[in-house]
Structures are given as structure tokens and as C-alpha cells.
């Protein structure tokens, strides 16, 4: 980044980008919730050329033990790129970059998850980048957030994320690989859409204050769009119809919540009678 020289025309005369997008246009995004059977929660996301799978385990007993917090759960996010995710084989294993991304994503989630409800546990979030095309940390964060909701982890809101940057003196949204490599600046942003709080913000390259503000508002707006896609993915998976029978079944569950003990006991006593 930082503007390596290139002959590629990233922005054409009509103000359109390399791949025909407008400066404020996102790449196509597809999210699917609950794709893994073994994990407590999971999500798969395709974002332009990015393909990310996220899995959540927990809250579960915290290992290593010394990481435990007696008062709250710790969020341990792990971002990893598959060796086949980029055109040159990526050396597998944690490196400086993936450790950094894991850390900032953990911190972003610690901000929204009600960690105090699960003292001494850890909530493990694994994000695997299967195919990368710039903006993978935003893609990973977005997918992981859906996976967390899918795992039933109590949190204040989903986290939505998107990057924006500067390419050939134009502020553009959601950079792809070529724009990232040969552009002037890239700024990933993660927000809590309901309140607008910022939970992740990084910048690579330089922007003037004016450019920064424009980039911010562009990325924020996109985050809200992505928020809708995230919610849609979860609704599609768990959608409940208005059918009466379904309502009855929900009633049965709802009724049993406060006095679920009683019902277990009933079931148990029935069992006793029979035996």
C-alpha cells in the first residue's frame, strides 16, 4: 500500500473503478449462518473475492488456565489465512499480521459481548480466510459476528465492518486487491450499528482530515448496509412463520422457561411411576 506505482487505471474517465463499481459501491456480499455442525455457532461469508468461514465455541472452560478472568469471560479470536488463500502460497501458521488482526477482533467483540455473565470462561472465535481479495479483516469480523449471534452468545448488538480508502485521489468504498495494493490509503472500520460506537479502526496510508471524514462517513454508511445483510442471514436461518402451530410450540417453550424445573420433575416422576 502507500501507493506503489502502477500502469493499471484504477479509476477511469467516467469515475468508475477498475471493476466497474462506483466509488461508493460495495462488492456483492452473501452471508449464511449456521453452516457447521460441530461448532456452537458458525457463519460463511462471501464478499467479492473474499471467502471466510467463522466458528464460535463457548462459553467454555478457559485454557490455558492463566488466561482465565475470575470476573468475566475472555474473548479469544483467532484469524487465520489458509495457505491457498492468496496467489503466492502463504506460509501457514500465525504471523505478525494475523496475530494483530486476532487481537483487534478480540477487543472489538469484548466490547459488545456481555462477558460478565460467564466468569472464568472463554469464548473462542475462529476465522478462516479461504480466499483473500483485500478487506479480509472486515469480512472476518462480519462473519464472526453472525457466528456469535448464531451461538446464542448474549451481546449488545452485532458488529458490522467495512473498509474505505483512497485510490488515485478518489475516496472509494470497499477496496479490492488491486486498489489496496496500488492505492494511497485503506481504512478498515468496525462499528456497533445501533449506537454508532467504533470498535475497530485502523488506517494504512495517509489521509487529510477532510479525506478522513469523508472516508469515515462512507464506511459507516456501508456498515449499516452490511448490518442488514447480517440480520437477514440470521432471520433466513431461524425464520419463524406466523403459523398457529409454531406459535403454540413457542408458547410451550416460553411457558416452561420460568418453571422448567417443575417440568423436569414431572417428567422424572412419570419415569418413576413407570419403573
Amino acid at each position, binding site marked *: 500500500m502507500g501507493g506503489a506505482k502502477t500502469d493499471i487505471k484504477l479509476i477511469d474517465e467516467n469515475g468508475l473503478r477498475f471493476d466497474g463499481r462506483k466509488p461508493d459501491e460495495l462488492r456483492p456480499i452473501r452471508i449464511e449462518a449456521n453452516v457447521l455442525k460441530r461448532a456452537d455457532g458458525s457463519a460463511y461469508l462471501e464478499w467479492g473475492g473474499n471467502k471466510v468461514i467463522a466458528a464460535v465455541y463457548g462459553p467454555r472452560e478457559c485454557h490455558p488456565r492463566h488466561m482465565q478472568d475470575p470476573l468475566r469471560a475472555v474473548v479469544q479470536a483467532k484469524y487465520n489465512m489458509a495457505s491457498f488463500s492468496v496467489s503466492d502460497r502463504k506460509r501457514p501458521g500465525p504471523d505478525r499480521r494475523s496475530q494483530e488482526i486476532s487481537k483487534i477482533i478480540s477487543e472489538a467483540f469484548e466490547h459488545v459481548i456481555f462477558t460478565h455473565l460467564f466468569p*472464568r470462561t472463554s469464548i473462542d472465535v475462529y476465522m478462516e480466510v479461504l480466499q483473500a481479495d483485500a478487506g479480509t479483516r472486515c469480512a472476518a469480523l462480519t462473519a464472526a459476528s453472525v457466528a456469535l449471534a448464531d451461538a446464542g452468545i*448474549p*451481546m449488545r448488538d452485532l458488529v458490522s465492518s467495512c473498509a474505505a480508502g483512497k485510490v488515485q485521489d478518489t475516496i472509494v468504498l470497499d477496496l479490492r486487491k488491486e486498489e489496496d495494493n496500488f492505492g494511497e490509503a485503506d481504512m478498515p472500520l468496525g462499528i456497533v450499528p445501533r449506537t454508532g460506537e467504533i470498535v475497530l479502526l485502523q488506517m494504512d496510508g495517509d489521509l487529510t482530515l477532510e479525506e478522513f471524514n469523508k472516508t469515515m462517513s462512507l464506511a459507516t454508511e456501508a456498515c449499516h448496509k452490511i448490518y442488514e445483510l447480517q440480520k437477514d442471514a440470521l432471520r433466513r436461518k431461524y425464520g419463524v412463520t406466523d403459523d398457529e402451530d409454531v406459535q403454540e*410450540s413457542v408458547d410451550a417453550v*416460553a411457558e416452561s422457561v*420460568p418453571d422448567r424445573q417443575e*417440568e423436569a420433575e414431572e417428567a*422424572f416422576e412419570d419415569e418413576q411411576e413407570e419403573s
Partner: protein
Amino acid sequence: MNEETDNVSASEVSTGRELVLPGDMLSDSKYKAGSGTYLENGKIFASQLGIVSVRSNFINVVPLAGRFIPKVGDQVIGIIMDVGPSNWLIDINSPYPAPMHINEAPWKVEFGDTGRYLTVGDLILGKIFMVDEVKHVQVTMRSHGLRKLQGGQVVEISHSKVPRVIGRNGSMIQMIKNSTGCRIIVGQNGRIWLDGEMEAISTAVTAIQMIEREAQTIGLTDKLRELLESANKKKG
């Protein structure tokens, strides 16, 4: 205008039974914040993926997923993980391991004699009798009906589906019991113990897994009845 939008949201809530996601607003101050919700600036929001239910002024979210977090009084099926001189460590399918002291066992156990009563891998029907603020959990077997579970087998389901498996006033589980003739115990932690004839057990397990898989679908009771009847026909 503000007043109006508030009324709309409140009326939506009273019809209830809709899917909510973390961060969805449920209500303003008309209700009290129940489980699966949180309060911010006087407004109630959902904190979990689930379905809204309003009960006596409290607005709750019944979660559709999530781990079992023990509460005092929960009846659970545990597996002995470790044996100490004065206690057993029990896996109750939650993030927290739960010890049971010898005083909480239904027998008179001498110090160091624990292994003679329960060993690693044994199944017990226990009850959560203490959970403190840092979630140190303790299990007891000193209560009516609690015991070591001998024979039979165990299936695990998501603990959030337990009420659905039991059904209204135990209707679902009763149907499975009557049809298959199995003895079934449902623990709040999502473990279900079954004993009976091999074939009957496998039918019951299929039925339970179907309930878990299709907990939210239409006509589940009928589907279950169909499944059980066809199994009986095959047998008879």
C-alpha cells in the same frame, strides 16, 4: 410523533413470538427487562437470538441456542470426570465443572473411599444445589429420586431445546414413553437418559433428534406421532 412510533413498537411486542436478534429494540419502559434482554437509556433490547415472550410484565427472549449455564435447582445428568478423596468432579455439559462433596452423596462415604461408589465414566442424576457469583457450582444427590444411573444410554441435545422435548406439561416426552415403552429421564443440561429394549431406544432417540432438529417447524406433534406409529407398525 415520537409517541406514535413508541406505541407501534409496544403493540408489536404484545403480539410477541417474533424472532429477535441481539440489539433489536423490544420495548420502552412499559415492561421490565427479563432474561435475554438488557436495559439501556430506559429502553429494552434483546441480547440474544431468540423469540420474544411476555410474562407478567416481564419481557423475555427465549434463546434458540447457547450453552447450559447451571441454575440452582436444575436437575441434570452428569458424568463423573474425576474422583478425589472427598469429592467427585462431574461434567454437567456446561462451561463449569461441578464438584460433588461426599456429604452430598446419598451414601455414607468414608474419606478416600469415593471410588467404591462412583468412578470415572459413571452417570448420575443430580441437582444443582449451589451456584455462587463467580459460578462455582456444586451438585447434590441428596434429594428425592436422585441416584446413580445404571444401564441405558444417553443422548445429548442443545439445552435450549429441552422444554420442547418435554412439551407442554410433559406431553411430548409422555408420547415417546407411551409409544416406545422406554424409561426416559431428561436433564436440564440437554442430556437425556433412556433405558429399555434396543429397538425402542433407537426409535426414541430418532424421535428426540427429530424434535431437536425441527423444534421450530409446523405440525411437529403430528410428525412425531407419525414417526412413532410407523416404528410400532414395523415392529408389530
